[in-house]
């Protein structure tokens, strides 16, 4: 990843000191959400595109961008969740977006 235009005033160590605890909490929130889904319906990942997208996004979280890879983790997850098509819809189908693009044609459970 390219260095920023405005350097971070804090060192890496200082960022960890300041932000580790709150991000640890976020990590546990995600783990608990997945456990909750397992407890209620572990098959959702095969039947609901939002859960599938979530699982695929988790894999991107762990993958360190390769050397020369321009996209950051956030950008790769944003693209995974985005509609990649370019053609407009013929008609309005629903008023609000759902948060992920159903590239697997799974629908919702």
């Amino acid at each position, binding site marked *: 990843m390219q260095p920023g235009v405005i350097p971070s005033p804090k060192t890496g160590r200082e960022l960890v000191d300041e932000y580790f605890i709150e991000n640890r909490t976020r990590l546990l929130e995600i783990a608990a959400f997945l456990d909750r889904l397992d407890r209620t319906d572990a098959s959702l990942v095969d039947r609901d595109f939002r859960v599938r997208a979530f699982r695929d996004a988790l894999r991107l979280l762990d993958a360190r961008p390769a050397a020369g890879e321009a996209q950051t983790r956030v950008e790769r997850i944003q693209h995974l969740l985005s*509609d990649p*098509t370019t053609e*407009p*819809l013929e008609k309005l*189908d629903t008023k609000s977006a759902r*948060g992920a693009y159903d590239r697997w044609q799974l629908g919702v459970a």
Partner: protein
Amino acid sequence: MMRYVDLHAHMVSRTTDDYLQMALTGCVAVTEPAFWAGWDRSSADGFEDYFRHLTDFEPKRAAQYGIRHFAWLCLNPKEGEDRQLAREVLSRIPRYLQSPTVLGIGEIGLNRVTRNEIATFRDHVELALEHDQLIHIHTPHLEDKYKGTRTIVDILTEYDRIEPSRVMIDHAEEHTLPIILENGFWTGLTLYPQTKVSPERAIDMFERYGTDRICVASACDWGPSLPDAVPHFALAMRRRGHAAALIDSIIYGNPIAFLGQSPKFDVGAEPRSGEAATTVSPRDHTAATSSAGVAAA
């Protein structure tokens, strides 16, 4: 004391407590784009009442807290599918453009990226060009943002009469910000607690891309949102170790640089308490009371 301009705030949905909180945290001006009410308006008359609310009542309410209030007018993208209604509403907009607090056309754009939404978007762009107005653009949310932003940028670049520096393409995120900036437009990061950009991610984008042509705003409205999202952002910047001058350039300097392209925009001197409701009236009060029907009582 901190000072800021909130360039995107739907104040018609907010209480006076919110104005108070904004004033206490250093807000000197807000600009309010016309948007969806969360339900569909039933007629062009309904929109016209909304335009009167935005150009007449809301500036007076804001003035009671020493805050300047400006507006952008349009039929928003969430209602852009109805072409007949769009045509009727568009025909009523020009006379409100005379209002001394209207800065331009907005927030226009796309929602689900349909053919009708695109036609309504183009109509608004042409109206703005015809009347030499600034443009404020809403990009779709969530999975539609990337497609919608690309479509909007492609359409705008077709018009050679558009000066990109007079257009703000708002609600950018990590995957759309570069497309907008590379084409010379201004952009905005809207700081929503749940569905949009957090202060931390906004700061990451400033660190990566610099501060040119990027604003932050609360986009507070009738949903879960914070009227003081901009001061929260400023606080988060300080926590990350950034200097006060840099923060000021983002939350005060940048919006003024963009909005100041309209001769009507002015952060002005804050009115003294007690005269607020009357000092709202802009420099040219007679123009305000003429055709637009925006006269204060």
